[in-house]
Structures are given as structure tokens and as C-alpha cells.
């Protein structure tokens, strides 16, 4: 594949994923509203908010690192989606996944977090520092089920490359990892909750308490960049989980519904459960998900 073609494919992927992301955000907030028996926002409201944020005329910047913070975040989102092979079989839509396997994706998640943390750190806003401290503390615990479940998948397929793992699950639904390695699947779902910053574990961006945590000082175009990332990043993670546990997809129409349903899992749980404090969430991760994860590895290891 020549480089120009590859870049075009990348732009196309980004366009699709961004739209899917914004729509998903809209639908999610619609679902939250419906649960409160409210009419809720128009499903295309995120588009409007995005345009409005980009259209604001003046910006206040606290320094170079503050300025580059959101860009780090967006690079991480965009990079993540480009490193994950989206469509099994199509060379184009697996974008730059040839440059690194699942480990690259696992560690690239932190690129954005670090960048964002440094950016909000330079703003001098104490609340953002508190938010970041909570976020980091919680992410170390949320990593436990994620690492365990991913590890047991890699062990099961004896491979780190996502395309290979997806390839092994193509022959029918029963071949999905979720069914061949159920324990890992369940742990992965719990881990998915932890990583999606939805309500049981969204103490980092706790509105009103520490005015939305790290992004307190961000506004206008900065906020726009963050929202674009907020569209791409969750979808990328969902696609990752879909690829690893739910057999990936041979085409976009197969991929998007799977991604949508998995995304809804965190939304539905989010609407029902109240927010955990940081140490409660850490302790929660150290109980059930840890046990399940270890069980899954033991099970893969021995049986």
C-alpha cells in the first residue's frame, strides 16, 4: 500500500469513527435523559456543541504544556484508532496496525492520560491536580482486570497480534473468545467499565465536586479538541474489545452494531450505579475482577 493511499484510508476511518463517536455520545445522553423520563438532547447535539466550541473567538492559555495537553490527548485517540486493525481482511482499514501489536495499544492508552495530566497540571488549577491524582490512582486498579483478561486471551491464542486473534474467531459466533474463554470475557467486561470513565468510576471528572476535574481550565478550541477525542477514544477502545472478545468484523456494517452494543453495556451500567469514591473503586477492582482474572489465567494455563 503506498503511503498516500494509506493516509486517505486513515482519513476515511477517522471520519467514520468520529461520526460514530459523536452519534454514540448523543444517543448515550439521550438514554440518560430517557431514564430520567426527560425528552433529552437532540441526537445531533454533540455536533453543534463541537462547532460552537471551535467557533469561540478568544482563548486563554497558561503555557506551552497547557497548550499541548489536549493535542497529546487527541494524538493518543487518533493514534489508537489507527493502530487497531478495524476491518479484518481489508488491508486499508487496518491502517497502521502493522507497526505494533496489542502491547503497543495497551501502553498507548497512557500517552493521552499523561499528556492531559501534564497539560492540566500546568494550568495551576488545584482541582485539576486532584482530578488527575484520582484518575491515576484509579487507572492502576482498573488495569488489573484489563491486563488479566488480555493476558489470558494472548495466552489462549499464543499470539500478541490482534489480526491473528480476530482471524481465529472468524468461524462462527461460538468461536468468539467470549464463549471459548468466558472467564476472560467477563473480566474484560468489568475492565471495560473501569476504562470508560462512566458513572460508577467517573470520580475523575466529577462535575460540581472538583469542577469536572482535569479539564477545568480548558475551553473553546481546547475543549473542542477534547470533545473530538471524547468521540474517537471510547469508540477505539470499544473496537479493541470487539476485536479481542467478540470476533472483530469483516465489514463496517458488522463492526458498528457490535461496537454500539458493547458501548451501551457501559452506558446502561453507568445510568444505574452511583459514583464510587476512589478508594472504594480501587478496593472493588481488587475483589471480584482480580479473582475472576486470576481464575481465567489459571484456567487457560492448566485446562
Amino acid at each position, binding site marked *: 500500500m503506498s503511503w498516500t493511499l494509506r493516509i486517505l484510508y486513515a482519513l476515511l476511518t477517522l471520519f467514520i469513527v468520529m461520526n460514530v463517536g459523536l452519534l454514540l455520545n448523543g444517543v448515550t*445522553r439521550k438514554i440518560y*435523559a430517557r431514564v*430520567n*423520563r*426527560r*425528552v*433529552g*438532547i*437532540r441526537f445531533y*447535539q454533540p455536533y*453543534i*456543541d463541537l*462547532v*460552537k466550541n471551535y*467557533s*469561540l*473567538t*478568544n*482563548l*486563554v492559555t497558561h503555557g506551552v504544556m497547557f497548550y499541548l495537553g489536549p493535542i497529546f490527548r487527541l494524538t493518543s485517540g487518533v493514534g489508537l484508532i489507527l493502530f487497531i486493525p478495524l476491518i479484518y481482511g481489508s488491508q486499508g482499514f487496518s491502517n497502521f496496525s502493522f507497526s505494533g501489536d496489542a502491547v503497543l495499544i495497551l501502553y498507548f492508552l497512557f500517552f493521552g492520560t499523561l499528556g492531559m495530566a501534564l497539560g492540566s497540571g500546568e494550568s495551576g488549577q488545584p482541582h485539576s491536580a486532584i482530578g488527575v491524582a484520582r484518575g491515576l490512582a484509579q487507572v492502576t486498579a482498573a488495569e488489573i482486570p484489563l491486563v488479566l483478561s488480555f493476558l489470558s486471551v494472548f495466552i489462549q491464542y499464543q499470539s500478541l497480534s490482534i489480526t491473528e486473534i480476530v482471524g481465529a474467531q472468524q468461524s462462527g459466533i461460538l468461536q468468539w473468545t467470549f464463549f471459548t474463554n468466558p472467564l476472560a470475557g467477563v473480566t474484560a467486561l468489568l475492565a471495560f467499565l473501569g476504562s470508560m470513565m462512566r458513572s460508577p468510576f467517573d470520580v475523575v471528572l466529577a*462535575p*460540581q465536586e472538583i*469542577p*469536572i476535574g482535569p479539564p*477545568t*481550565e*480548558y*475551553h*473553546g478550541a481546547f*475543549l473542542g479538541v477534547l470533545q473530538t477525542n471524547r468521540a474517537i477514544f471510547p469508540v477505539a477502545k470499544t473496537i479493541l474489545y470487539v476485536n479481542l472478545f467478540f470476533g472483530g468484523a469483516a465489514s463496517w456494517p458488522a463492526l458498528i452494531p457490535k461496537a454500539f452494543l458493547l458501548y451501551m453495556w457501559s452506558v446502561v451500567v453507568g445510568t444505574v450505579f452511583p459514583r464510587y469514591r476512589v478508594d472504594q473503586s480501587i478496593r472493588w477492582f481488587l475483589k471480584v475482577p482480580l479473582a475472576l482474572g486470576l481464575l481465567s489465567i489459571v484456567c487457560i494455563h492448566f485446562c
Partner: protein
Amino acid sequence: MRSNDDFLSKKIVPGVEGDEIEVDPIRDYYCDAVPQVSREYKRAYPSIIDRFKNWARSESIWILAYGSGCGAIEMRPLMTPKYDAYQYGIQWRPTPRQANLLMVSGYLSLKTLRIVIRAYEQMPSPKYVMGLGSCTINGGMYYDSYNTINRLDYYLPVDVYVAGCMPRPESLLDGLELLKKLIREGKGHGADIYAEKFEWYKANQKKILKSWNMPDYSW
């Protein structure tokens, strides 16, 4: 309790390398720039893009959840299923940085005026102000009180006033509808007016707020 001025007075602080550092809080802690008028305001005739932007700005108004005075309670029903302002693209944001609309919902004492001015100045432009209730229009029942202000737009450029000694949610929605129409037509230039007549506004504010211990424009 030390008065606020004490924090802003110049002070000599022993530096780490044994040198003396002269710290002037106003100059060192705060940025003393004056707001500028935006390019759009200068343009005679709004271009296609401007019109689209104004449409987007009208359809997604983020309110600074700052309840000053008894009108705040009127805003809460807008979040409930009965009135549900979300469907009009309206949302409440905890920080002025991410807010476009400042709802002054009632009387403003001198202390809260200072906070409202800071909040307004920390909002990115274009930003709009909506005054609720008669207190913001002409002082309402506190018109002769020693520590409240009578007319809001002496101090801040107000776009929409909603009359009523505390207007009901419906009238709030109506006021918001009016605001959206103004924005769509490109008349939402409160921030630029504030920048244009900055001295006038500042004079008014300083006249009423005797101890003015903060930078002229707190970014």
C-alpha cells in the same frame, strides 16, 4: 481575618539563593491585559460562515450554573422532564471557562457583584448575560437598599432581561428563545460591547465597589 487587600500589597520575599525578591501580586500573579474587540464584530456584514457559527452558538448555549439571588430556583425545573431545556441545546457547566451564558437570577449585593464580574470576565467570548427578575432591571424591592445594585447593565452588557418578581420557568424558556433568536441574527455582541466601552463599565463598577483589589480584567 486579614482583609483581601493585604494579599495584593507588595512584599519582599527572601529568595532561595539568598537574594531578596520584590513580589508585586497585581503584576506577578495576574495578567493585566485589556480585552480586545473580536474580528467578527468589526466585520460589517456577517459572512456565510459567521451565520453558521451564530446558528451553532444559538443552538448550544452553555449556562454558567451560578444562581445569584432567588431566581436560581426557577432554573432547576428547566432540568426536569416537565420543561427540559436540554432539548433546546441548553446545558449547565460548572466553570465559567466553558460557559457562554451568564444567568444573573436576582439581586446582586456588592460582594456577589464582585464574584459575578470575575465570573463574567473569565468566560470566553462570545458570551451573553441574561438578567432575571425585576431586581436586575431596576433594583426591584431592594431598589433603595444600601448594598444592592439597581441596574445590572450599568455593570455588565445584558442581552435579555426577563421581567417578573421571579419569572416562572416558562418565561425563562421564552427569554432563552429570545436570546437564541438574537444570537442567530448575530446580535449577541455583549463581550465586544464590554470591550468597547470597557472604561465606562470599569468606572461604574469601581464607583460602587469601593475597595477594588483585583486586576482591571481578571482573565
